[in-house]
């Protein structure tokens, strides 16, 4: 699948947060590509820098954070070199983004329809009336049964699932080339999650849109994505297509992530977590950042590992890649 032109290329992106204690390297030199029509997942535990990576692509890193290096190419054009005004024309129109919590995502004192129309009016220069017509048709696309009523409601009058759909509509309303979804299902219960995943798959099939899905949930990523990048402590530690990651994970961290997912039908199996927690990003451990939690770690892991291509399109940042399946 995919295989077309690259829509988004991220090269050696670095986003640092200066703090009183030192510099937090939240995103420390990550590179990945999203091809035309492709869905790429960015997976990792809380605090590994995946949301910061997404905000860096939008150039909306909250202060005091700053993008200190790298390139973000949207169809070959470096977004980091655009002026702020040009960047506003990109946000919403060419790259859209949805967030984890649809309750706080919407302005509580503005109607849903007005909020969705805002981007349409700004980017497509339509009148208010035309924009509202588009709002209603977009709400229909995301499977909202009575789009007119929903457009007229305030956020607190909608259920969580409805809000999540309305947020998708908001992101889709200007036909972006790339959609970034930050934890799209995390705040929802399982049934609504399943419905939303179905919707996202449908949309992907119908619109052929490229997207970047950010989640801590490998299950969600596996449902939606063709390729996946596993992030740990600001770096991408493994990058491959989803089947290979699931069947033959090479990085010990990815192995640990997969082992910590409960599987139906394997009753006697004990869930294995990963010992320890995400390292301090101000003074990360020398060499491989996962080494203090890694059971394969040895002296060599005190040196910085290089990203190696084990097979075609399967990259691992590790001195001792796991062989023969997890």
């Amino acid at each position, binding site marked *: 699948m995919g295989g077309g032109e690259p829509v988004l290329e991220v090269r050696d992106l670095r986003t640092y947060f200066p703090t009183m204690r030192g510099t937090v390297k939240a995103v420390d030199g990550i590179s990945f590509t999203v091809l035309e029509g492709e869905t790429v997942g960015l997976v990792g535990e809380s605090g590994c820098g995946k949301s910061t990576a997404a905000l860096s692509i*939008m150039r*909306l890193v909250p*202060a005091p954070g700053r993008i200190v290096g790298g390139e973000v190419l949207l169809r070959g054009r470096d977004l980091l070199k655009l002026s702020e005004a040009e960047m*506003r*024309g*990109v*946000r*919403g*129109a060419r790259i*859209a*983004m949805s*967030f984890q*919590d649809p309750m*706080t*995502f*919407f*302005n*509580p*004192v*503005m109607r849903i329809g007005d909020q969705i129309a*805002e*981007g349409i009016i*700004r*980017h497509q220069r339509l009148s208010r*009336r035309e924009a*509202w*017509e588009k709002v*209603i048709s977009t709400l229909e696309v995301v499977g909202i049964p009575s789009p*007119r009523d929903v457009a*007229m409601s305030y956020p607190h009058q909608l259920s969580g699932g409805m809000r999540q759909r309305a947020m998708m509509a*908001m992101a889709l309303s*200007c036909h972006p080339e790339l959609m970034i979804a930050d934890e799209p299902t995390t705040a929802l219960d399982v049934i609504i999650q399943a419905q939303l995943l179905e919707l996202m798959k449908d949309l992907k099939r119908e619109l052929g849109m490229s997207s970047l899905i950010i989640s801590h949930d490998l299950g969600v990523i596996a449902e939606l994505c063709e390729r996946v990048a596993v992030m740990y402590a600001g770096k991408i530690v493994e990058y491959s297509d989803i089947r290979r990651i699931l069947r033959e994970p090479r990085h010990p961290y990815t192995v640990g992530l997969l082992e910590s997912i409960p599987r139906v039908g394997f009753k006697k199996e004990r869930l294995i977590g990963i010992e320890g927690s995400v390292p301090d990003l101000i003074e990360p451990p020398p060499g491989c950042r996962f080494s203090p939690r890694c059971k394969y770690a040895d002296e060599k892991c005190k040196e910085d590992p290089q990203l190696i291509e084990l097979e075609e399109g399967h990259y691992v940042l590790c001195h001792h890649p796991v062989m023969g399946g997890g």
Partner: protein
Amino acid sequence: MGSSIERLSLGRLERYSRGLRGFWRSYSRNRPAVMGLAILFLLTATAVLTDLLDPYNPFGIYPSEVLLPPSFSHPFGTDDLGRDILKLVMFGSKTSLLVGFSAVFIASSIGIIVGALSGYYGGRVEDILMRLTDMLLIIPNFFLILLIVALFGSSLRNVVLVIGFMTWPGTARLLRSTFLSLREQEFVQAARVVGASHLRIIFRHLLPNGIYPVIVNSSLQVGSAILTEAGLSFLGLGDPSLVSWGRMLSIAQMYVRRAWWMAAFPGAAIFITVMAFNLIGDGLNDALNPRLRER
């Protein structure tokens, strides 16, 4: 054509009136606040109607009617120049309301802009604007107002401008603190993501969320602006060409043993007016505070 937009605007009108009704329902539960509003209506009506119905000259001199106690023909008595106190009090209401509302309009406008900008942008913008605010806050307000009026003359315009330009720091601080928490809300990020500019976020997204405390505060400020004007006039620094409750009090000092009514009625008018605005502020707080409002 247009059927849907008609539906939309009809819906908006309907929701607006429903919102208004909901607001009134919770406001009217506070009885004193309703009384405050009634007093304000009465005052406004007096201020408007005195001019229209009775082109009586409040500056005339009536030697035969000097210092008469309250009676049927002069319910509030007369002053040292024989003028009817009731009529003077009625004329005075115009000055007070004019000063109160226009000074607060100026103060709120400045306060909203300063507070919104410093709360939203933070950093150096906030440092500069807030130090300026602090500077105004530490200067004893009344004395600075006194000084400026003494230096630049005491026309009504000057009094209004001075009160307006001296009393915005409270509003600015109030809105800044609201904006500090509002700007962290995710919907700000969301608006940025669809390409909204900073000014648009400030005025379209954040201000409607944070304006209620400012409205409440402003209604209280009207009361204190009226009091400040009365104080200035009492010290002889009000506009000499206007009837003002404060000036009436000032003159009444000299006769307070012989003619208590000269001080009592304008004093009562000031008290009642300021109290009315405080009651209204209290009621607005109850009605606009989302935590107290029923869902």
